[in-house]
Structure formats: structure tokens, C-alpha cells
């Protein structure tokens, strides 16, 4: 086994490394699971170098770093945001479901985990199954070790008649909104950025409301029904944003917009144009018109064919741009080229953080950082989608290590 740290430029592994010194892993031909001829020897070779070295000291605080990125100044290094409320819960010993049920534990888990790994703190939450529960369906909280987020047990709409009768829910009481508002109020009390956890994804929420299979069929055979679901879904999001604006003021609130089911793994660009774009236009224009402070726009999964249409949406101004988060399916070079006035976020493949060796994690993170650093309006390192709750903590630390080794702008 030749897996080990070595000082850059040195061929031999060094047992003494200064904090901030650049470290490299030289990869051997064997993998971590290979049967060892001499396990003791391997442990001796591996363990000592892995315990030394450290992170290069930061110059800015997390708040200063994020502020610099937001206003368009160059921070000391690339910020590193954990895209992982569920990971944070599990990391501190809570069940994953607390991020959807308990505002205090949700925030505590994320703040503690951010502190542990030296990440810029994020404290919000949201969930991809949004829309079913809020419109009267049923969801199930993640309970088994194989679950990471709420799952839909019963959609709100099970027939065309159900949809015709469906009305907008009471925005203050619908589904998970009370919990999401509780999180925002706690953020306010702690002086943290206030994020609205409503999923700003009309198409995915509509599909969750009526069942994804049914929604896909309606898009082809009964588009008027798909559009009715989309209308309700969009109006609900706007009502919910207004609720947040009334409570905290637009200038203090950030929102999340997403295009999940619009990914080309599901939908054609033509369908994206018909069923996603018009409703996204409404949301993006609403952000502009209300003066909402900021937006994180998660462009989930394979979206390469949709990017030209996404580029036409309102994405903030160069002074106050949206943060655009990409999955690993979109190359960061292309994202940067197409969205030079946006803050680019992403895009390390979550599955690799969960299943990959630390060496692999280090390498894919290095590549993301080195590409991302060329973004003219700034870059934030993140996973390309939710950090899996079961990801080994060491792999997350390895991402942070790569930020330290490659993320400084000097």
C-alpha cells in the first residue's frame, strides 16, 4: 500500500509538516480494501503521516468571506458550504428527521458541524418532496438507515377530479411551513442570515402534489391539467414568500429556487420550455420586484440542454447576483462561461463523498476548486446536490483539506 501524505515537491513522506503546508496524497496501485500481506506494516506507514499537517490559517472570518463573495470582492479563499442538513444531524448524533421537525436541533446540528469542519455556516433546510404534504397529501419522515429525507406516502391529488377541487392551502399552516418558519425565526434570533425553506420549484412541487408518474403523463396527454397543477404550485410559493417578506422584510430574506424534475434525465428541453420556464420566470421576476435579498438557484442534475433557457431568466444583478449551484453533470467550466455574472457553486458528486476513498474525494474536490476559482463573480465549493447523511465525516474533512490546499486566492 502506497497511500500516504507527502510534502509537495518532496518524494519522501514527511512525518512533520507545518500547518498550511501543501500536502499531497500519492496514490498507490492498491486500494484501501485490498488484503494486506502485513497489516501492521501498513498501519505504521499510513497512520503517522495522516495525523500531521493541518489547515492553512484563514485570514477572514466566515462572515467576512461570505460578505466578500456577495459584494464581489475576492475573499482569502474559496468558501466551503455544507449542502447537508441531514448529514449535520447525523454527524452530531441526532436522527436525520430532526432537520424537518425540530428547528433548534436543525440549527444546532448545522452550526456545530460547520464549526467542526471549518465550513461557512448554513442553517436552513428544505426538502425535495415539497408539495405533496403542503397540499393535503401525506409524507413519511426518514426513519430507517436507508432514508435521507421525507418520502411521499400519498400525493395530494389522485385523480383529475381531485385536481379540479384542489385549492391553495392556508399558507401559514400548510404541511411543513410551520417548521420552516420556526427555523427562520430562530435564525433571526441568533442573528443568522434568514433563509426561506420553501422549495421554489413549481414543476417538482406540482409533480409531488399529483404524483410524478401522473404528472409526466399529463405533460404529454393532458397538458392543461399539468398547467393547473403548476399554477397552484407557483401561487403557493409566491404566497409563502410573501409570508416570509411580511414577517422579516424582503431585504433580510433569501429564497431557494430549483429546477429538479426539469433535468434532462426526465424532461426534454421542449418540455422544460413549456412546463418549467414560464413558472420560473414568474418566481425570478418576483424576486426582482419584491427586492428579496438573495437567491440560491439549484440547477439539479443533467441540465446541459436547458442552460440556454436558464440563462435568460432574471438572475440578479452583478452587484447582487444569484448563487447558481450546479450538479456534477454540468461542467464548471461551462457553467462559468455561461453565467459569468453569477456566483457559481458546486459541484462535487455527492456519491463520491459517500462511497469514495479520501484520495478520490481530495482529487475531485481539487478539480472543482481549480475550475471554480476562475469564476469572475466568485465561487463557493459545495457538493452538486445534498451531501448524503451517511457520508463519512473524514471525506467531508478531506474536502475542507482540499480547500485549504488549493482554495486560497494568493
Amino acid at each position, binding site marked *: 500500500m502506497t497511500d500516504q501524505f507527502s510534502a509537495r515537491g518532496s518524494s519522501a513522506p514527511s512525518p512533520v509538516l507545518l500547518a498550511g503546508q501543501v500536502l499531497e496524497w500519492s496514490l498507490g496501485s492498491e486500494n484501501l480494501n485490498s488484503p494486506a500481506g502485513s497489516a501492521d506494516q501498513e498501519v505504521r506507514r499510513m497512520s503517522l503521516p495522516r495525523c500531521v499537517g493541518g489547515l492553512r490559517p484563514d485570514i477572514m472570518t466566515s462572515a467576512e468571506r461570505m460578505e466578500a463573495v456577495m459584494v464581489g470582492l475576492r475573499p482569502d479563499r474559496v468558501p466551503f458550504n455544507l449542502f447537508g442538513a441531514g448529514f449535520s444531524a447525523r454527524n452530531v448524533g441526532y436522527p436525520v428527521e430532526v432537520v424537518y421537525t425540530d428547528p433548534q436541533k436543525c440549527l444546532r446540528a448545522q452550526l456545530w458541524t460547520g464549526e467542526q469542519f471549518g465550513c461557512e455556516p448554513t442553517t436552513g433546510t428544505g426538502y425535495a418532496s415539497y408539495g405533496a404534504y403542503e397540499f393535503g397529501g401525506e409524507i413519511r419522515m426518514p426513519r430507517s438507515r436507508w432514508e*435521507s429525507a421525507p418520502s411521499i406516502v400519498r400525493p395530494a391529488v389522485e385523480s383529475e377530479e381531485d385536481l379540479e377541487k384542489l385549492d391553495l392551502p392556508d399558507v401559514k399552516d400548510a404541511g411543513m411551513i410551520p417548521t420552516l418558519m420556526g427555523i427562520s425565526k430562530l435564525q433571526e434570533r441568533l442573528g443568522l442570515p434568514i433563509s426561506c425553506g420553501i422549495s421554489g420549484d413549481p414543476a417538482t412541487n406540482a409533480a409531488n402534489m399529483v404524483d*410524478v*408518474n401522473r404528472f409526466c*403523463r399529463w405533460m*404529454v396527454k393532458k397538458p392543461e391539467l399539468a398547467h393547473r397543477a403548476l399554477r397552484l404550485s407557483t401561487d403557493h410559493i409566491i404566497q409563502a414568500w410573501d409570508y416570509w417578506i411580511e414577517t422579516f422584510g424582503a431585504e433580510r430574506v433569501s429564497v431557494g429556487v430549483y429546477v429538479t424534475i426539469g433535468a434532462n434525465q426526465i424532461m426534454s428541453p421542449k418540455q422544460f420550455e413549456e412546463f418549467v420556464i414560464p413558472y420560473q420566470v414568474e418566481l425570478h421576476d418576483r424576486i426582482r420586484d419584491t427586492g428579496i435579498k438573495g437567491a440560491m438557484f439549484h440547477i439539479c442534475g443533467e441540465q446541459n440542454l436547458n442552460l440556454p433557457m436558464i440563462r435568460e431568466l432574471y438572475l440578479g444583478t452583478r452587484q447582487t447576483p444569484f448563487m447558481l449551484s450546479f450538479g456534477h453533470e454540468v461542467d464548471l467550466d461551462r457553467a462559468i462561461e455561461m453565467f459569468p455574472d453569477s456566483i457559481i457553486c458546486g459541484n462535487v458528486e455527492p456519491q463520491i463523498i459517500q462511497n469514495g476513498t479520501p484520495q478520490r474525494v481530495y482529487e475531485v474536490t481539487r478539480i472543482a476548486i481549480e475550475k471554480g476559482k476562475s469564476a469572475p463573480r466568485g465561487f463557493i465549493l459545495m457538493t452538486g446536490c445534498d451531501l448524503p447523511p451517511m457520508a463519512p465525516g473524514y471525506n467531508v474533512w478531506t474536502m475542507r483539506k482540499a480547500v485549504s490546499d488549493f482554495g486560497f486566492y494568493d
Partner: protein
Amino acid sequence: MATEARKKEILKGLYDGVVEFDEDKVVELSNAVLAEDVDAYEAIMDGLAAGMEHVGDLYANQEYFVPEVLMCSDALYAGLDILRPHLSGKEADVRGQVVIGTVEGDVHDIGKNLVKMMFDVAGFEVHDLGRDVKLEKFVEEQMKTDSEIVALSALMTTSMLAMPKVIEMIKARNPDAMIMVGGAPISQEVADNYGADGYAQNAANAVQEAIQMVSRLREMGKA
């Protein structure tokens, strides 16, 4: 008895009905197959299945996406439901048996349903356990049906972790069972690491993998 020209017309209509996801047309022509004494097996293979094969190409070429394929699948099953009961014993012989399901903790089943459909088209007997399937259920169903293949699907990075566990459980009871895995977060590398015998990158590829697996088993005299 239909003339050769009429038979061709019916088969072409079934093919087009599937490709154009025209369920009514497929039902009408499937009934015509029976009424006009056209061979049901031929109608399935040269009409419906051939149409679905073309749909697979359209999907691979990004001309069709999931919504269209789901509609094609509805048309296909509308025809299969009418014609299958009329297959003769020999024609109804299956190519192999597959147990399929989305693993515990995961309720996403679009991908699994597309793979199931391709197995159906290819002449496999499919035992569909649905979604969010308890791991023990895969083991029980494989043993009960003596299926050559178990196909596991997962969309979530969390639920994919159930795959190595269920593979271990199945192999412990029946080392000869072949396991195929697929789903958005799965890659060939992941499949290999999990100890799976095959990886379904997409629905069409799943069937090719399965056919190879069954062939391997038969060469070894275990199927």
C-alpha cells in the same frame, strides 16, 4: 384469416401505436389480431416489441424523454394484456425470471418501471415487488420463484447503501443468483464495489446485461 398485406398493416399499426403512444390504436389492432387470426406471438414480437425497441433508440438519442416513454409503455401494456393470454405454451416460454424492486427507503420507481417494461418486452417473467421494498423480501422472492436475476433500483445516495446489504443477503442464501443494480447514483464502479454481477446504465442496457447473465448461468448449468 388476414391476408399477408393485412397482417403487415396490423403489425405496422401496432409498431406505430407504441411509438406514437396511441393506446386506443394499439387496443383496436390487438383485438384485430385476435379477430383476424393473426399470430399473437408475431404481433407481440414484430409489432409491440419492435415498436418499443425503436422507442429505446429514440430515448437513447434524446428524441424521447421519460414522459414519452411512460406513454409508450402504457400503449405497450394495453396490447400485451390483450395478446399474451393467446400465446401458445411454447411461445409463452420465458427467457428467464427477474425479481425487481426499488430498495427499502426509496419510493422512486420511474426508472424501475422502465426497466421492468424492457424485461417484459424481452420475454422475461418479471416479479415486481414495487418500491420501498424490505430487503428480506428480495431474498424471499428470489428463493420462492427461483429467479435467475434480482434487479435492484435506487435513486437516493442513502438508499443505495442498502444494495450491498441485500446483495450479501441474497448471495448467502443462493450464491448462484445474479444481481443487477441501477439508478441515478449508481455507476459501474459502484456496482463492482457492491459485489453486483451487473450494472444497468439504462433500461435497454439492463436487458442486455440480463441476457448475458442468464447465458452465463446456463453455460455453468445453473439455470
